[in-house]
């Protein structure tokens, strides 16, 4: 199955190319742990953003907390800027149900009121359960519900997509 998946690094290049034309340099780029941060780091470099990158761990905002509990490895969220009144480019690796994005938006609003939020994902795999759609997607794939699509990072920093 892996053979049919696109190369993550080319997808990021394509994603950056799609975002670049209308990209306001004032935009703050925020990645969602863990894969979203990797993609955000690449976009941050490719788009030559002058601002520091933000990181969100949405564990404290998940809607399934009372069912499955706290994620064992919660990382601190880190937004090293004031997002009040600024445009946000929210970045994740895979868009599936949309619940992660909803949680991320809830968390962002606890830091302040951004002027806008746009969503960039490496892969939109379908199966949305909420009215959340990406503004930019590296690829749109149809992955059956019983399979998971996963972004991993090798020691040399190389990103790869896999399906299981």
């Amino acid at each position: 199955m892996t053979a049919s998946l696109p190369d993550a690094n080319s997808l990021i290049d394509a994603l950056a190319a799609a975002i670049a034309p209308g990209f306001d340099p004032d935009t703050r780029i925020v990645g969602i742990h863990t894969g979203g941060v990797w993609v955000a780091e690449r976009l941050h470099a490719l788009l030559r953003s002058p601002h520091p990158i933000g990181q969100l761990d949405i564990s404290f905002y998940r809607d399934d907390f009372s069912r499955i509990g706290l994620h064992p490895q919660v990382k601190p969220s880190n937004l090293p800027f004031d997002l009040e009144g600024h445009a946000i480019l929210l970045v994740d690796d895979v868009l599936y149900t949309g619940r992660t994005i909803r949680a991320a938006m809830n968390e962002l609003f606890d830091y302040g009121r951004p002027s806008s939020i746009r969503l960039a994902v490496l892969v939109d795999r379908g199966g949305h359960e909420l009215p959340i759609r990406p503004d930019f997607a590296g690829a749109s794939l149809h992955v059956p519900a019983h399979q998971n699509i996963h972004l991993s990072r090798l020691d040399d920093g190389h990103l790869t997509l896999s399906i299981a």
Partner: protein
Amino acid sequence: MNLQLSADGRLRHLLTLDGLPRAILTQILDNAESFMDVGEREVKKVPLLRGKSIFNLFFEPSTRTRTTFEIAAKRLSADVVNLNIATSSQTKGEAILDTVDNLAAMNADMFVVRHSQSGAAHFIARHVAPHISVVNAGDGRHAHPTQGLLDMFTIRRYKGAFHNLTVAIVGDVLHSRVARSQIHALTTLGVPEVRVIGPKTLLPVGVEQMGVKVFHSMEQGLAGCDVVIMLRLQNERMKGALLPSSQEYFKFFGLTPEKLALAKPDAIVMHPGPMNRGVEIDSEVADGPQSVILPQVTYGIAVRMAVMAMLAGGAAA
């Protein structure tokens, strides 16, 4: 069966640090690290415990511990009810369980319990329905696990690790639930040398069996320490003839700048509060550059958030 852990190893109640595996302690400290930043946000709240009801049952007065539990619960968006229940000497176990049953009938999700009798939190934890969690906020001389955890969090923040430290706990270990929780946590987390320092009358018989080295002089005990934890000396101890006077105690076991100089130059000084200045600690040390006593209070909120979040989540699984 361990009352504190579920069959799949999740934290169900927090009653004591004795017997809790290192992985759980580390997970609490790691989660607390993540909660640290919530206190610095524009909106100092996360929605994790929205709709949960937490009852602070304080059968023994405490301002700071109760306040930090209350703030922690509120930052998790829980609803908090504080009950200060004056206990008279004839209060029996039956009355406690009546109180607990009544609050459970109001759909309580968690009880935070402080009581002057050892074992009170265990007693309640054994009694409550499976979906209710109990946090021990101090029971008699037995345990004060969230204080022990916040102390570990403080040590890790300032020292980075546990495996290379010498830690001294100074003072009234005999009557201290805080000291017991600290000793369990320090040994579980792999601190190679834990010392207790105090007069013979204030150290429990057989304390060596907890894996600590015993010293009766500050000069020997503080030498080379990375962390110095001072315990509060209860004034009642003087009346009980365990000590001649507070001046005498300060002379031998009070932490002064001169005595602190025997520890490593970068040693940190901790105290669970409230302090008796001029009895167990000199003001110059308490307010000095090596003191981390106020950061301990701040960290206590994040640690209690971590504990409550771990207890409340996944209850239905």
